[in-house]
């Protein structure tokens, strides 16, 4: 197998562009944060230090600006913020990493491991089910139509609503599985801990699988159908080669190429859904951290108020983009081994 330099270079290019977009977004967010800080400071000064506020107002009037505009400019100068959005984004990212290192209660490595573990396990399960079921139903068109309908049906239902249903039935009504968390408290030891974690992960994994598996089954079944129409497969059947050998040696290898493309495409969607499920089930992965980086409160007489923690948010966004890039890269390499034409 030749190393797919072109594909890897293209993926790197995409990744760099994604990083540029994230950095620019961080720059915009940084600008807004400073603006909000200026607005809040001016309101506070008005009441707590009227003399200083008066001085600010005089200076602002001299420069034909509002107090907030004047104070904002001074604040930007004092913080050493660049006027270029991209550079301002880099400044925020650097500051975020520094603050993140200081934050002792944020365990990023653990969150990444949990996210990857749950996602990859779910993906593996989906692939196993789809290959087994998809190959079986390839010749049963009415059943296949039904699976395709299910795939489209689940496309229109948010995964976390399925999770709510599962929790309602299996955790609250029948108390079979825990409703949330990664493990029981206090944690058990050794094998008991592994079993406990597995028990806690069953509902999140079942949710991901039940939402995405139908599309994978349909893809495998349709590709298997196509393979069965190929002359070399008809010849193999005519020669009396056992079905198991045909499936294993030819069909699985050929559908693997399509399946890996499909997996790469679906991984982004799965990751998005996982982030919400992670927050819902409090699995302590990237989703919960992402949710915690935005605090949404309903305040009577005011409505919904959102406070933002950039030091947590942007490193997480970069990690999510990197995960996506890493998985895409691995899938491209797998595709290369499956089909030398790809390389």
């Amino acid at each position, binding site marked *: 197998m030749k190393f797919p330099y072109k594909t890897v270079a293209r993926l790197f*290019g*995409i*990744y760099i*562009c*994604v990083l540029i*977009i994230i950095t620019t*977004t*961080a720059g*915009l*967010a940084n600008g*807004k944060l400073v603006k909000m800080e200026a607005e809040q400071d001016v309101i506070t000064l008005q009441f707590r230090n009227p003399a200083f506020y008066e001085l600010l107002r005089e200076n602002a009037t001299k420069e034909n600006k509002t107090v907030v505009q004047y104070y904002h400019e001074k604040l930007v100068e004092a913080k050493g913020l660049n006027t270029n959005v991209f550079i301002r984004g880099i400044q925020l990212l650097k500051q975020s990493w520094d603050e993140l290192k200081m934050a002792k209660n944020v365990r990023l490595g653990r969150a990444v491991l949990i996210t990857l573990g749950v996602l990859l396990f779910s993906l593996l399960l989906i692939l196993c089910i789809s290959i087994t079921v998809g190959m079986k139903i390839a010749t049963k068109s009415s059943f296949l139509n039904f699976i*395709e*309908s299910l795939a*489209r*049906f689940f*496309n*229109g*239902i*948010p*995964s*976390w*609503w399925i999770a*709510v*249903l599962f929790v*309602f039935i299996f955790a*609250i009504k029948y108390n079979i599985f825990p*409703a949330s968390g990664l493990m029981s408290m206090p944690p058990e030891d050794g094998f008991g801990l592994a079993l406990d974690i597995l028990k806690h992960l069953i509902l999140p994994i079942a949710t991901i699988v039940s939402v995405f598996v139908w599309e994978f089954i*349909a*893809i495998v079944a*349709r590709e298997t159908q196509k393979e069965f129409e190929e002359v070399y497969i008809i010849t193999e059947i005519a020669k009396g080669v056992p079905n198991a050998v045909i499936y294993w040696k030819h069909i699985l290898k050929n559908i693997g190429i*399509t399946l890996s*493309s*499909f997996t790469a*495409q679906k991984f*982004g969607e799965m*990751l*998005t859904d996982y*982030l*919400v499920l992670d927050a819902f089930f409090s699995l302590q992965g990237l989703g919960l951290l*992402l*949710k915690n980086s*935005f605090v*949404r409160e*309903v*305040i*009577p*007489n*005011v*409505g*919904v*108020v*959102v406070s933002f923690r950039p030091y947590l*948010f*942007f490193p*997480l*966004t970069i990690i*999510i*983009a990197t995960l*996506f*890039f890493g998985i895409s890269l691995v899938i491209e390499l797998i595709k290369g081994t499956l089909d030398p034409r790809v390389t």
Partner: protein
Amino acid sequence: MKLNRHQKAGVVILILFVAFVLFSELSVSKTEINNWENPLYWNKYPKKANPVWFSIFREQVPTTVLSPSEASKVGEEYYLFTYVYVHRYSRPPNNIVFDRIDPGYYIIEITRPDGIKIRIYDDELKEGVNLNTEPKMSMQIFSAMREQLNLKEEDRAILTPMKILFAKDVNFATLEGAYKIEVLCNCDKPPQVIVQGEAYGLLGTDNYGRDIWVGFVKSMRNTLYLALVTSVIIVVLGVLIGSISGYFDNELSKVVTFLLEVLTALPVLPILIVITWVISTQGMGEKVSVPPLKFMLLLAFLLMGKFAKTIRTITIKEKAKEYIMVEVSLGASGVYILRRHIGPVILEHALRHFTFLMPRIVALISLFGFFGMIPGTNWGSFMIEAMEQGALYGSKWWWILSPGAAMAFLSLGFTLLALSPSYEEEGIEAWLS
């Protein structure tokens, strides 16, 4: 266009869904919709009430809004309004609220079915009042019924005024029958009298007393509006960008194709959240407000990558066909070929894709709503509030199920309608989109 059996079923489901949306819109008032996020407006409604249809499974005292059965003028300034409430349940109601009070002097009397008349209020009133929280009213009820029910001083702390008012005997069995409420006041309009029960509305009420059905309708309206417009924008942008970059093979189209790939590789959820926050306006202590049009354009831009890539692939395939090459050699312009030949093919795909996209965007909006950064009330924020108020663990399944069931119904309609575009016809690219 001939529809098959499944597609006909899909059309029927979608028509039923539209009828349901219209019925829902008509079932709630504009004032209720506008005040959904204002808990003070819902003060007079029963809190944590079950839906009215719950009475099918077990007896529930419904909430009743009374209208005056009689109104007469007493003297020069005073009016007497008479309300009649007929109670036929084994449990008493939860509260009686006197709302929409015109400031003035009020005398309020309640005559029980057994003829006992209790003057519950005799003083100035400036705003709404209710039996459970107004000490004067509870004191009057307690004093009037003390002898009849053999009440002791400590019962004042144990028994609610409603339990005493509706008690038949010393065993506190509920006295069924017609309760007459008379309000004498120097006011211009009658107060609204609400007998709060255990049940209210189609979906009950939440912890603030808000009618959940109103929240459901408001969030459905917003979600469908956002999803519909966003889907249309995605289709329009995708068709334009995909077809142009697919037909004209130059450096610019290569750059556009690469940018589309970048779009598909972006982590949509965090980027959407942060840009939505950047474009939102929120002063100190003020609620977050997101401009819907900007949000829809942003969402469409972030999500159109895959669809535009598919359109691009279809355009390239069509362009390679012989009849197109003949047209080109005859001197047909690119715009003409796109409009005359390739356009119908991609438009057909776009239409099919729309049936796939619309329910997907509805699901995505409720998914993003989980993070609270979607403009207005939507099914995501509606579900978040349900969770925050303990609907899941409080077994208020109707609250949790309602938006999901509506989404499932919509998805089923589109699924059946779009059943025909098959894998053989559209290939892997369409499935990937």
